């Protein structure tokens, strides 16, 4: 999440809203956001319905996989980053910048 915070200005300049999602409670997520200095919303998928809907619930951990989705203005998925690749958001930042330039 910190990595997204570091790139937040670039992403916002490219018309992109960042939303973190986990199965923690809203209050745990707020405390987490404050601790790491994240200013974008960390959404609480308490119970995991959305995590399951997106097909990324992991039984073994009773939690979501580490995944980034970039969703376009038309609601379609433009990019995906999975597991370890999802820690560095460069691919997503680059994709946003490319789209900004191509407009």
């Amino acid at each position, binding site marked *: 999440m910190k990595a997204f915070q570091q790139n937040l200005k670039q992403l916002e300049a490219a018309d992109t809203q960042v939303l973190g999602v986990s199965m923690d409670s809203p209050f745990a997520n707020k405390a987490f956001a404050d601790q790491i200095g994240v200013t974008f919303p960390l959404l*609480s998928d308490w119970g995991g319905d959305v995590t399951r809907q997106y097909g990324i619930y992991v039984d073994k951990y009773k939690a979501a996989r*580490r995944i*980034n989705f970039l969703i376009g203005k038309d609601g379609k998925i433009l990019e995906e980053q999975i597991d370890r690749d999802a820690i560095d958001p460069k691919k997503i930042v680059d994709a946003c910048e490319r789209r900004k330039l191509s407009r």
Partner: protein
Amino acid sequence: MKRNCVSTMLGVWLLTAAMVCPQVHAQGDKAQANKPEPVPLKLNVGDVAPDFKLHYFDGSDLKEVSLSQYRGKSNVVLAFYIFAFTGG
């Protein structure tokens, strides 16, 4: 005669090596192929992302956020993470 024998032995050894090596190599490839592949995602690039309504706490209130509120306005990065208070 002795020299002849040595070269025959060498020949046999080389032949055996030539036969065994590709097998060893193939086994290596197979072991690599058996490495666990990352499980593919249910949603792929080009799919419509399912809408949702979720909440976050802004310090005083619970705020509702839906994916559809950004439709036509901005791109959205959905960053699913495993647990709060962990890295990544």
